[in-house]
């Protein structure tokens, strides 16, 4: 390991209250959970920070439950937990589907949904689903709780509105309107790939659409939705989609391929609407 581990500190809180206290007292403390992103940086010798706050023991943040008709997914729920959770499979099956496509089984057993959102990668598999579900991020600090819609929480390329001293506690997902939920991740191979394009949608009287890997942030495609809502044709919706996305050429794909695939997915999702 190229990062010398011996002078790195791992603070292990006994409770959420203790974790929040530690974070309030030391803004440089970096939260760590499944470490599937963070330890890649460590292994590459580019790890930021010297002191880490271990969230893994805080099992109270791993709960998945339905409360007053709202699906609550704890930030520490792993993708393996989410893929198996009956409440998720019933209410938001595309989240279970996305969870089964995050990395490999080894990664799904450790990677948490809170980490996926905190990292805020434009290629994150779960984020287009959470955008379509209009998920609300529950943020906790010693000062209390606040709630932010996910669209407001992600502020830019790998940037979020997480304030100093705050942890992501959970995601609250209200019931979705009637319709078919659709999800498709396109990568270089069927498993263990980082996406070239991700599209999640609700196809029904209310149309919702969000995409990953086609802009600096995971994107809710509200103008495309508006075209569909007003009875516009698929060609008009595709036109709106092309105007909303801004994919780039990178090591995984090209902008032209991403544009074509995003449009193909839109057409396949909404062809029989």
């Amino acid at each position: 390991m190229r990062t010398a581990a011996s002078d790195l500190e791992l603070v292990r809180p006994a409770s959420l209250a203790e974790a929040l206290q530690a974070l309030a007292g030391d803004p440089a403390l970096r939260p760590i959970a499944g470490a599937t992103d963070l330890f890649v940086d460590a292994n590459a010798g580019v790890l930021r920070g010297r002191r880490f706050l271990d969230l893994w023991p805080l099992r109270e943040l791993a709960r998945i439950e339905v409360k007053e008709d709202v699906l609550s997914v704890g930030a520490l729920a792993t993708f393996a937990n989410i893929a198996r959770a009956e409440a998720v499979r019933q209410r938001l099956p595309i989240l279970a589907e996305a969870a089964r496509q995050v990395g490999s089984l080894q990664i799904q057993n450790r990677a948490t949904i809170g980490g996926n959102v905190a990292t805020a990668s434009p290629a994150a598999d779960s984020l287009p689903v959470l955008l379509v579900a209009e998920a609300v991020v529950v943020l906790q600090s010693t000062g209390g709780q606040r709630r932010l819609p996910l669209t407001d929480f992600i502020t830019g390329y790998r940037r979020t509105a997480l304030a100093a001293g705050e942890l992501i506690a959970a995601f609250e997902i209200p019931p979705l309107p009637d319709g078919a939920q659709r999800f498709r991740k396109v990568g270089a191979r069927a498993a263990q790939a980082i996406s070239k394009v991700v599209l999640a949608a609700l196809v029904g009287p209310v149309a919702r659409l969000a995409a990953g890997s086609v802009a600096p942030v995971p994107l809710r495609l509200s103008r495309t939705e508006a075209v569909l809502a007003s009875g516009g044709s698929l060609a008009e919706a595709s036109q709106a989609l092309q105007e909303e996305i801004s994919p780039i050429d990178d090591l995984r794909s090209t902008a032209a391929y991403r544009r074509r695939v995003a449009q193909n997915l839109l057409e396949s999702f909404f062809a029989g609407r």
Partner: protein
Amino acid sequence: MRFHLNGREVDVQAPAMKRLLDVLREDCGLTGTKEGCGEGECGSCTVLLEGEPVCSCLVPFGQVAGARVMTVEGIPADHPLLRHFVEQGATQCGACTPGFLLTAYALGSRAAAEEVRAALAGNLCRCTGYQAIYRSIKKARA
């Protein structure tokens, strides 16, 4: 720090942010766990943490306090997986073998055949073309 390694309680002194992979190899002397990519892509370093496959290159040692860890050395010598891997030629260079064995061991006989392939998607092998590995696992489950 105390944890359970291959069924025995052990007490190992190592930095909390050291990779579990390195602790197993350097501090516990168990070199069966191999490093491949070091970024969670190849599955070479797979161990079982609380019975579930994880990449040991991505686990800070401090997080396994009190937990159960199983490495390839913990698979019983008479387990059918080992015999069938040998008989079917499922091993060539051997770097990926411990990871495959542990992922397959964790699945036990509970998964359907197609789920076995999906579960093994995070274990890469550049020698065998996978067929001998799938065959060995199928025979071990029979």
